[in-house]
């Protein structure tokens, strides 16, 4: 009993008090800053090192929906591409995810997530989500689970993951959508009552990621359904996920 009290006291209060303004560690690879002029050799060489073909040339740009934030391009471009530790990288439109040379974090943030009044009034105080992993490697799944742990405590904002799609306001999808999960995923989506939102988490869901050219995926559903929020990363940091959802539902 005394040990239990000692343990509780030692544990204390570990929740991040201000999730909205908390910074992620310096080493984290978050929003990329591209300065095309810093690399004078052929940009195709930089594009070629990218494992997921996220980099395009003329002009140089990175698609965050494909990027797995591995840092290979940072090394290959002598710092012309630099990953900052800025972590709020989600967007409500896929085309916003393409970062051009010279784009600053502030510029990106200004238009990346559209907070609609209707969404705010409907889900601003309570948002229940059903998570479906469709070929996810358990990386994104672990970070989504971490959003609810004692450190991040997403539940304080009324955002929770629920066990049944019938209880949910939306679906959070991870993984490249394997053939064998395609049916279950679309069934889960159909089981959620309208109006419903769709959140795509991680490079695999958004673009196929490292599994983009696998013959074992079926991306028909994901390519046709309207996705409301794209949260890039491999996997995204819990603070990226939580802030994305809070921005989307218009929480101050």
């Amino acid at each position, binding site marked *: 009993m005394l040990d239990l009290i000692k343990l509780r006291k030692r544990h204390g209060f570990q929740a991040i008090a201000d999730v909205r303004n908390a910074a992620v560690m310096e080493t984290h690879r978050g929003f990329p800053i591209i300065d095309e002029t810093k690399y004078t050799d052929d940009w195709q060489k930089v594009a070629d090192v990218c494992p997921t073909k996220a980099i395009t040339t003329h002009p140089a740009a990175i698609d965050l929906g494909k990027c797995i934030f591995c840092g290979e391009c940072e090394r290959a471009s002598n710092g012309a591409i630099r990953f900052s530790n800025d972590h709020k990288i989600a967007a409500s439109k896929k085309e916003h995810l393409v970062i051009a040379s010279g784009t600053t974090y502030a510029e990106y943030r200004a238009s990346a997530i559209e907070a609609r009044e209707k969404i705010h009034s409907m889900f601003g105080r309570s948002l229940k989500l059903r998570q479906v992993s469709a070929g996810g490697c358990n990386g994104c799944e*672990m970070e989504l689970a971490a959003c609810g742990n004692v*450190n991040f405590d997403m539940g304080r904002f009324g955002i929770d*993951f629920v066990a049944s799609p019938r209880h949910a306001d939306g679906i959070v999808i991870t993984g490249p959508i394997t053939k064998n999960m395609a049916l*279950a995923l679309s069934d889960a989506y159909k089981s959620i009552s309208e109006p419903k939102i769709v959140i795509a988490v991680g490079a695999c869901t958004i673009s196929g990621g*490292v599994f983009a050219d*696998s013959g*074992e995926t079926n991306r028909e559903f994901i390519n046709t359904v309207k996705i409301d929020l794209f949260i890039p990363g491999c996997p995204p940091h819990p603070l990226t996920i939580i802030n994305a959802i809070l921005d989307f539902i218009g929480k101050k």
Partner: protein
Amino acid sequence: MNWIEIKNLQAIPLDEIPRLALDDLRNQTAEKIKSGKRLVQFFGDTESDAITIYAIVADDNNSKLCISSSKTKPEQTYCSMTPEIPSASLFERELYELCRITPEGHPWLKPVRKGVAGIDRSEIPYRFFSMSGEEVHEVGVGPIHAGIIEPGHFRFSCHGEKIFHLEIELGFQHRGVEALFIKNNNRPAYLEKLSESIAGDTVIGHCGTFVRAMESAANILVSRSAKTIRTIALELERIAIHLGDLSALSGDVAYLTGNSVFGALRTKVINTTMAMCGNRFGRGLLTMGGVNYGISPKLKEKIVSTLDELDDAVLLAGEVLFSSASTLERFEKTGIVEKETTIEIGMVGPAARASGVAIDVRADHPFGGYEYFPVHKLTLDSGDVFARAYIRFVEIQQSLKILREQLNNLSESELKKTLAALQPNRFVVSLTEGWRGEIAHVLRTDRDGKIKCLKIKDPSFNNWLAVALAVREEGISDFPLCNKSFNLSYCGFDL
């Protein structure tokens, strides 16, 4: 010579592997396993029309891997090993599914991931094992489960609350990983990242296994400090997951203090990995030829102070958890897997050690940093949820000690060597003790020095059957607890 004996990570020329007739390969593999050796792999390597079947059997006591092969063609048959060697069952099912070689007399050739013999699984009317009788009913769960976890289907045959039988159907996560390795064999950076995603909870485990296989095939030796940093990352991964599992096991028995405290401790560990390489799971750290990030004296100091904190905190939290009567009531004598069963079905890792089977790749087939500091194998006897939880607790403490040894072993040597071309016609077996147990990658290059075959085995492949056996005769409400005590991978199995 019917078999060649090699060591973990020893690259051998393909033509040194003996060729046997298929029946002889089957009989001699079975004999070896009956004499106490362990089946690591039994798979087919297809090249145009020919299939070479390789058998890899571990002689753990002598740190040797025995290898032999047989050249054959699709549609061949042989007498199944499974009736006498249950641990061969999944390997034979996989061989049947991928290479259309039929193990005659196999008791149950159900699909592993894709479908049987080229037929898509959605087109096969699959019949689950079924039971009948008064008050016998079935409970189907999944593929989508109630929490944030990967998909798989569980079919329980119950009598009231009691589970008679559990059938596990996997394959939902199949992403065609092995084929992607072959398809992209000229893109090394891609292959590294792909290996990190075989199972995202075992980034260091799988990526380390893969890059070591590649380095052996290319005949390059990585520096001592790179080996040390890799070992540190692997042990941090083990500690983090074990802590997360203790947190989840506490949650499953409604012991909320344990759930919170172990969860918060896990955060500290993965943040240490993040400080090393910028990712909480260690992505981007390992590369062929070494590591991408070093450990500065300042970072070393930070890691040591985290270890100091963890030493006390883990001990206290563990003592509280394992002296709580309500927790022990749920953990003890729940989900028992007997030692004989453990050996018979070929289990690996902490789950095997919790049932008294002393196998640990770090000790039996040392690699990387463990060459400098031998690891002592830890075992428990009871084989229940308690043992699988407690073994994690003691392994965390052991790993904390290993980390200190390895941190003191850091030297100034170069972090990364340039990868040379892979040698042609080479065969390498790379084994790693990941947090779940033995990870095995078998790499074969062709005459141009290209990857022609990469056979991957996650420890989950060995252990899923144990979950089904552990829950027999248990109440169905104890299933989540039993399942969590193994914490197996779906995508690692499905590939």
